[in-house]
């Protein structure tokens, strides 16, 4: 079969003469050989290593017991893990943090995208400012916000500078001086109320509610990732055809109608992307908390990422650490795998 000259073969390509001989090697084997290094390393470093972590989580192997065998009962590490009040608090913190962080980053990201998308002077500059935190590391963010949320000096001092507290004082109110990262309170106190409905709740070893210190971490994380949400939403806004926007303008739709009937529904796929990507970031968050507050007062800011790191590399309990990391992996997989499978189906 001959290809017409017009098909669009680049000129620099035409000048090369190839042997028309097609061999099994070049046709079938060579492409597979090219991709095999990445397949082999990913298979080993992702899948085999996860499998090894599963085995470690089922064993009593540790730094002091290098000849460890399968533990009896087999799920001993898991029962230890879930019986640990600290890990119970970590799971509570992950849920609360994820809700606060997703509301903060995706909500703020949407507001930023809608504002920057308007016809306004200097919008490129604003976009740059809002996305900037995404480029720097969680560690730097954590170090900076740790000082900002220092109750003695940071943002509370800024409230004084801005005159907020003197205004409150003039109105006869107490100055606004939250303890931020140092506040061990869990609010509201739900345990007692719950124990009236479920007597079992009285035996809980941790407080149900929002750990106040976690709010500061969620603010810092939202600061860092709202720009990411904004960029995704801006990509989404660019897909809304102009004729649809125009039609709404001709119909004189109000701002809110326009948003709720057109913009929001058309942004839905991009909202989903933000929730999946940022949701999985939230479930495995580690660096930011590590640099900002560590486990926090009464484990108020502890998360599974920190717990696994400390129990594995400080306490050297490999089995429990491995079990904790697999709980993290499972949470991430529940969020990410359906999304990946859907993308794969669309591609096929």
């Amino acid at each position, binding site marked *: *079969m001959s*290809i017409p000259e017009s098909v*669009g073969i*680049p000129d620099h*390509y035409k000048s*090369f003469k190839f042997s028309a001989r*097609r061999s099994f090697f070049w046709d079938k084997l*060579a*492409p597979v050989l090219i*991709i095999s*290094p*990445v*397949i082999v390393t990913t298979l080993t*470093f*992702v899948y*085999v*290593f996860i499998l*090894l*972590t599963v085995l*470690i989580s089922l064993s009593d192997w540790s730094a002091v017991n290098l000849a460890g065998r399968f533990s009896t009962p087999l799920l001993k590490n898991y029962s230890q893990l879930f019986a640990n009040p600290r890990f119970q608090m970590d799971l509570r913190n992950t849920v609360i943090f994820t809700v606060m962080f997703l509301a903060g980053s995706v909500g703020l990201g949407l507001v*930023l995208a809608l504002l*920057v998308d308007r*016809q306004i002077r200097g919008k490129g500059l*604003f976009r*740059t400012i*809002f996305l*900037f935190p*995404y480029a720097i*590391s969680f*560690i*730097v963010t954590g*170090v*900076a916000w740790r*000082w*900002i949320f220092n109750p003695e000096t940071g943002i509370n*001092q800024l409230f004084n500078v801005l005159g907020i507290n003197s205004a409150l004082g003039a109105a006869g109110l107490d100055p606004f001086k939250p303890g931020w990262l140092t506040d061990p309170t869990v609010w509201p106190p739900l345990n007692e109320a719950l124990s009236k409905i479920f007597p079992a709740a009285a035996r809980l070893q941790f407080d149900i509610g929002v750990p106040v210190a976690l709010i500061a971490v969620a603010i810092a994380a939202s600061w860092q990732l709202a720009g990411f949400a904004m*960029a995704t939403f801006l990509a989404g806004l660019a897909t809304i055809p*102009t004729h649809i*926007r125009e039609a709404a*303008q001709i119909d004189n739709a109000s701002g809110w109608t326009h948003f709720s009937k057109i913009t929001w529904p058309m942004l839905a796929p*991009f909202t989903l*992307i933000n929730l999946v990507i940022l949701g*999985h970031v939230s479930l*495995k968050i*580690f*660096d930011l908390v590590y640099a900002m507050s560590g486990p926090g007062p009464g484990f108020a800011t502890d998360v599974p*990422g920190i717990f696994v790191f400390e129990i594995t*590399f400080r306490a050297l309990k490999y089995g429990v*650490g*491995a079990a*904790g*990391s697999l709980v*993290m*992996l499972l949470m991430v997989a529940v969020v*990410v795998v359906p999304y*990946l499978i859907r*993308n794969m189906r*669309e*591609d*096929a």
Partner: protein
Amino acid sequence: MSAAASNIAPARKRDLPIQQVLTLALLILLSAFFLMPVYMMVTNGLKTASEVSVDSMWTLPAHLGTGGFAGAWEKLAPSFRNSLVVAGTATVISCMIGSITGYVLSLWRIRWSNIISTLIIFGMFIPYQSIIIPLVFFAQKIGLYGTLAGLITVHVIYGQCINILIFGNYYKSIPRSLIEAARVDGANVLVVYWKIILPLSAPGFVVAAIFQFTNIWNDFLFGVTLVPNPSSQPITVALTNLSGNYSVDWNVVMAGAVIAALPTAVVYLVMGRFFVRGLVSGSVKS
């Protein structure tokens, strides 16, 4: 668009002046929130040790000088260099491997290529805690533990998971007919890559390189678990050590944070356009 044309079909309704002013005011207010930590880090980094005190966090430094930067640089320079070597080397190797693998996976007809790609891409989402114990022991076994070469190897390997997504998305925009035509003429997989694909790949390389460099520079978990010796540690680990050390003045800590943030911040400010593209292609399917 000319005035006459815009009368017929306004591309976007112009906001009223009052709406414009309100939007602008809101944007400026939000910018203040986003720039507040940057202001705090830079101004306090520029203060002298005697100047940083509990009540003066938000004031400007009294006089111009290097403030905490000299002290921070003295402490962080070795790890800054380590991070530069690791992120630079790993980015170059990672992108070369990612490019040719992504090309074959997305443009060559390989059986199950979709499933293979998805399985590789899944690796970018996993919490690295779930592979870190076997990884540390493996690195110890083969002598890569505690070395920059070990850190580079690990970043190159895990970097492929996102490279396959970025390069794959990029190469999907190249028409397959181009490849088919070359194949009919007898060009093999390497010749097609070298003569057709590579010359078209520059934007893909820039996007992937920015992504890799930023990710590797900002990594903390691999650095802290694979490199126990301070002389080989990356900057993120050195910065947490500096920050957790209460005998260090916090003008030095803030200056250190600025130094640690600088390379990726510069990459972002210079290549922002590509940065956004990488970010979007890293999560949004094209």
